[in-house]
């Protein structure tokens, strides 16, 4: 089994590997980095530090917490500290679009200005091709010379809010938003360590001494003592009933809590040892085999498994910050076998504000044995009743995705309006099709063309919200690795679009998206319509039905191959997803890409003038993927028995979705509604026309056409009232 899989994978990789260089010059994509780069003290023996720090020729070992290295250069023949180099993954593990972090090497000078940025490894599909890596390089170049202490965000500069904007990379918003966080967090962590950025000064807590002696249960209930539990499966160990580590912790300076936990004497002793701006907290381990002390403090004097974070500040503990916890005084405390009092020696820390105890673990990948950082934390915020004046109000900065939603609220509202509008219009399609006739389809087309126009201009070119098969593959990836709502929420339009797509595919089939709202599809058919209107009609043609019925399967094969490839390598699937001209058309622009891409997209669009939607019909893997569940849409289009021999609709069907038996292929139908116009058109629909003529000839009343597509039968009034009596 394994060998077979391996063989398949090898074959696939070999094939794709042969393809990739031809398509794009991918460099950092899944680049193989030496394992030492994440661990070795001499980072710069493995990472190109000199490239991100022009002028530096000597680099120290990793130091600090989190890690960085010092960059030295020669000035006047003397070795001089020029600045710092850091590896982003030493500092933060913020994932990008792929769910994996972008490994970035960052250079920052002594004044806290970025001097070099280099992506060493990423797994971003969009950067593999579509968007050239050079776009990312250009994005990163925007950081050069910028000060770490500034408020740097993706988007417009907003002088009144002191925000310095960076130009995003079109089509890779999620990636650059993540990258910005990585840059600012990495630089900030080092700048704060080396003193470039002033430590945050938080107003110290003023305690209210209530003079009561809470027991353990009370301490836990009121939040004065909190718990941090890590399960073995969270660190890649076999699941078991025992926790990996089970910690309780709390803040001790507050007199009531401190006395309750330590007892009066120990509390007084401890407080006597603390100077101004020093804070004591305790930790006990009530379960699990893992130690929270480890042995790092023995050699390096530093406890490397626990730290306290408050905002952007990280507080670590040295051996001299440790005190013995002799016991927990409060009644009802759990039994514990490891304990500590740690002292935070910084005025940056304030008990008035929330903070987190972080347990720094390692996750071991059981399949590969690869170790990665896995941090676990629990927030602690002193209960308001212990604080003079209660808890201070804090304005938490919005998550990046929230900021994006707020920033683009108007567009989001418009877009949502468009989606709801189209769905509403379609839900009332009966009224539109009845208002239309074979000769005059404007009641339908007015809405449809409007939708196309908005979707091409606003959705496609402006919002860049072109759904793509890569998103389907990315979900697949995310499902396997790390599903993060935040990530998908970072692109609100695609997010909303997919909700719309999923709902409408279930309701009506894929046609509403493909036929009404897909920017590329709309553009394609719009070109066809325009072509017809400007006199190219005679050159326009359809494949013969039998031919069509063969070629239409190609798109399913395309989808199948993409799906199959994605199981082995997302990267290569992304390469193959270039069959979609979407990136070229909307995200990057026809003129911004290598000529093969431009030629392909332009060719398809050109062909669209003569064949209706050639890409949609025969190639689109996204369409194929949506077509499959469309088989089971709930509400299909209407047919009548006479359709089995009548060819009126089939002839007019642009999608070639009506077979010779008059049946509609749900998977191919793009819900243009032409046949539905015919369905109620007493002049165009042959069975209706026949009946109309008969009635006219017989002088009978022309009753309205019912839901079944026939004239409502004429029945005697008595019978009708009799029927009512039932």
């Amino acid at each position, binding site marked *: 089994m394994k060998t077979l899989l391996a063989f398949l994978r090898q074959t696939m990789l070999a094939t794709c590997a042969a393809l990739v260089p031809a398509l794009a010059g991918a460099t950092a994509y899944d680049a193989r980095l030496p394992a030492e780069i994440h661990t070795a003290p001499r980072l710069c023996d493995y990472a190109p530090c000199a490239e991100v720090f022009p002028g530096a020729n000597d680099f120290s070992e990793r130091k600090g917490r989190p890690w960085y290295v010092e960059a030295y250069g020669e000035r006047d023949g003397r070795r001089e500290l020029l600045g710092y180099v850091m590896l982003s993954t030493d500092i933060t593990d913020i994932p990008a679009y792929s769910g994996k972090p972008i490994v970035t090497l960052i250079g920052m000078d002594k004044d806290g200005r970025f001097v070099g940025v280099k992506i060493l490894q990423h797994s971003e599909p969009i950067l593999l091709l579509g968007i050239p890596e050079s776009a990312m390089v250009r994005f990163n170049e925007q950081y050069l010379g910028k000060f770490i202490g500034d408020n740097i965000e993706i988007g417009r500069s907003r002088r009144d809010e002191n925000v310095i904007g960076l130009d995003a990379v079109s089509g890779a918003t999620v990636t650059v938003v993540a990258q910005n966080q990585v840059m600012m967090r990495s630089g900030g962590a080092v700048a704060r360590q080396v003193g470039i950025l002033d430590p945050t000064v938080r107003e110290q807590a003023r305690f209210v001494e209530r003079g009561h002696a809470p027991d353990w249960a009370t301490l836990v209930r009121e939040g004065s003592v909190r718990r941090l539990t890590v399960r073995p499966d969270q660190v890649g160990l076999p699941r078991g009933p025992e926790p990996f580590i089970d910690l309780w912790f709390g803040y001790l300076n507050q007199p009531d809590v401190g006395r309750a936990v330590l007892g009066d*004497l120990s509390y007084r002793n401890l407080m006597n040892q603390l100077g101004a701006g020093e804070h004591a907290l305790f930790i006990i381990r009530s379960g699990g085999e893992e130690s929270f002390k480890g042995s790092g403090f023995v050699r390096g*004097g530093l406890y490397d498994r626990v730290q306290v974070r408050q905002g952007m500040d990280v507080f670590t503990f040295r*051996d001299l910050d440790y005190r013995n916890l002799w016991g927990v005084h409060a009644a009802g405390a759990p039994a514990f076998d490891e304990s500590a009092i740690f002292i935070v020696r910084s005025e940056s820390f304030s008990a008035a504000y929330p903070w987190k105890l972080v347990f720094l673990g390692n996750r071991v990948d059981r399949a590969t044995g690869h170790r990665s950082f896995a941090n676990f934390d629990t927030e602690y915020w002193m209960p308001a009743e212990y604080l003079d004046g209660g808890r201070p109000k804090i304005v938490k900065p919005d998550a990046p995705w929230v900021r994006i939603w707020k920033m683009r609220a108007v567009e989001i509202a418009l877009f949502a309006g468009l989606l709801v509008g189209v769905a509403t219009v379609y839900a009332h399609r009966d009224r539109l099709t009845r208002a239309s006739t074979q000769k005059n389809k404007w009641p339908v087309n007015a809405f449809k063309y409007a939708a196309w126009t908005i979707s091409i201009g606003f959705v496609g070119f402006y919002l860049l919200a072109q759904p793509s098969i890569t998103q389907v593959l990315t979900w697949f990836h995310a499902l396997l690795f790390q599903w993060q709502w935040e990530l998908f929420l970072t692109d609100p339009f695609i997010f909303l679009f997919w909700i719309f797509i999923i709902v409408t595919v279930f309701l009506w089939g894929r046609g509403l998206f493909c036929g009404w709202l897909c920017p590329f599809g709309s553009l394609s058919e719009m070109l066809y319509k325009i072509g017809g209107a400007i006199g190219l009609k005679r050159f326009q043609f359809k494949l013969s039905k039998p031919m069509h019925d063969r070629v239409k399967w190609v798109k399913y094969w395309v989808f199948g191959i993409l799906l199959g490839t994605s199981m082995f390598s997302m990267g290569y699937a992304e390469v193959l997803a270039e069959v979609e001209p979407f990136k070229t058309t909307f995200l990057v622009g026809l003129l911004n890409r290598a000529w093969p891409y431009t030629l392909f997209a332009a060719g398809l669009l050109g062909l669209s003038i003569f064949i209706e939607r050639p890409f949609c019909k025969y190639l689109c893997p996204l369409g194929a993927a949506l077509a499959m569940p469309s088989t089971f849409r709930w509400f299909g289009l209407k047919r009548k028995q006479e359709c089995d021999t009548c060819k009126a609709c089939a002839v007019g069907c642009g999608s070639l979705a009506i077979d010779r038996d008059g049946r509609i292929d749900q998977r191919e139908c793009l819900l243009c509604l032409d046949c539905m116009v015919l369905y109620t058109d007493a002049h165009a629909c042959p069975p209706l026309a026949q009946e109309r003529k008969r009635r006219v000839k017989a002088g009978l009343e022309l009753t309205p056409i019912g839901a079944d597509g026939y004239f409502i039968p004429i029945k005697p009034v008595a019978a009708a009232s009799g029927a009512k009596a039932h």
Partner: protein
Amino acid sequence: MTQDTLHPSDEQLNPSRRKFLNSAALAGLAGAGLTVGLSACKQEAAAPAAAPAGAAPAPAARAASSADAVHLKPGELDTYYGLWSGGHTGDVRVLGMPSGRELLRIPCFVPDALTGWGITNESKKIMGTKPDGTLRYAVGDTHHVHASYKDGNYDGRYAWVNDKINSRVARIRLDYFICDKITKLPNVQGFHGIFPDKRDPVDPAINYTTRVFCGGEFHVPLPNDGRDLENPEKYRALFSCLDAETMEVRWQVLIDGNCDLVATSFDGKLAASNQYNTENGVHFQDMMSAERDACIFFNIARIEQAIKDGKFTTIPGSNVPVVDGTQAANKDPKTALTATVSVPKNPHGVNASPDGKYFICAGKLSPTATVIELQKVLDWFDGKLEDVDQTIVAEVELGLGPLHTAFDGRGNGYTTLFLDSQVVKWNIDAAIRFHNGDNTAQYVVDRLDVHYQPGHINASQSETMFADGKWLSVGCKFSKDRFLPVGPLHAENEQIIDISGEKMVLVADHPVRPEPHDFIFFRRELITTKQIYSHDDFPHAILNPNDTGVFRDGNKVTVKMTSLAPVFEPKEFKLKRGDEVTIILTNLDRIEDLGHGFAIPDYGINFVVNPQETASVTFVADKPGVFWCYCTHFCHALHLEMRSRMLVEA
């Protein structure tokens, strides 16, 4: 638990013991009476148990749990700090209790090869040197170690220990756990008992230790400069008072008799010492001639007032004020500086009960303990009592060879019976009632065999007002068959007893290197240690490796060095033969526990510098050649490589 360890509590009336006393007890003291004493004990063992039937299962269950408590699992910490004197090893040991694990030996009076105590200039200065720079004394005999108080409990500042051989007092800082000062008592020989006061007798604001009292045992001519060698009647002992901070001798009291131990009252008003040889005899038979010996009480406030009033003398060669505390000079209670309460012959040990009410003198040769009520002693000083012996509220029989008493804070005393090899638990109130004629009062609660010949005894927090009655440690002077034989010199046996219940339960034997005498143990919360030194402690500290090097002034050479694992700076230094060299070494490591050793081959030098500590040695470079100075205290993976070359030019 066998019947053997259960003793009837009403055996104090056993007449056979009384008879036995005068003949066998003395012989026992001479070392031959042991078997007889034991057999006497066994006699009683046959009597039916008097323990309440319902209490029987409890000790067994407790034994299991308390055994867990003394046998700590890896990573578990002890509940108590113990400070043990080291006897004639001249040191103080720190033990974790109740596990009995030895954590540290603090060298005080005697050089220590591990730390370089007595080798470094800093330690030599504390220990005292002859004019040629060599140590004044290389032997010591520590007996009693007691710590400083505040509000009736230990405050974790200091502990003091005596050196009986050379009459010195050493003070130990309880933050660094090092000896920081040594004072030699003038005109004292055989300095034995020692005890800090617990508060000031006059000023209520001073609720902590400011004085240390030292009992002189051997009476000698004053001054002992060769005069009166053949006039033993002029020999006298002195009772001394030191200032706890400066370690200067504040005053001395001339007394009759020889002081054994010292106790102080919780109110700060009284200090006392039990005395033998109140006859001031020189030979054994002279010392045994009086009917009773004494427990002498010192009225601290009156003594200090007398000195303030100038009513003192000095002894030639010393400017310490000396007041007269002899019985002859203190007959009028209203003016007396001392009160001499009689106790049975040759008493041993005086201990203050945690309730602050009583001092208890054990009889040693008498099978009794004498309970003296402190309020009555104060009453005597106020003239309210006719006879000073009216302060004795009980004098009850406990067993053979009672020596020292510990307390559980629940009204019970635990007294070692040297000859019986037992600990007896007895109730003080019941003893007083019995003494007052209530023959039904059964004051002996329990007896327990210990192994063997117990001397000092102490209980957790026993010498404070916060005696918690959890653990008892007994210093058995003989271990005999209790450990693997290692030749003629035996370890002593410190036995741990669980006293949290009605019955005592023996839970552990711990071999200790001879030969600790006295000890205290107290809650770990009371100590706050410093993890590493501070450069501020050392005026000569070298703060930067760049400041190291050889600094020459004629043939006086100073070598400034630093250590930072795994490197000494400088990596070599050059000297000339005959140079008087001082090496100053600062350990710049800041990591807890990362100390370095510094040894110079063939020069007899080795010492330890702890993190941020500075130490220095001075020697004459009299041997030319290359000498690899190396780190002796394991520090780093490159510990072996941590060296510096000392080059001595011929």
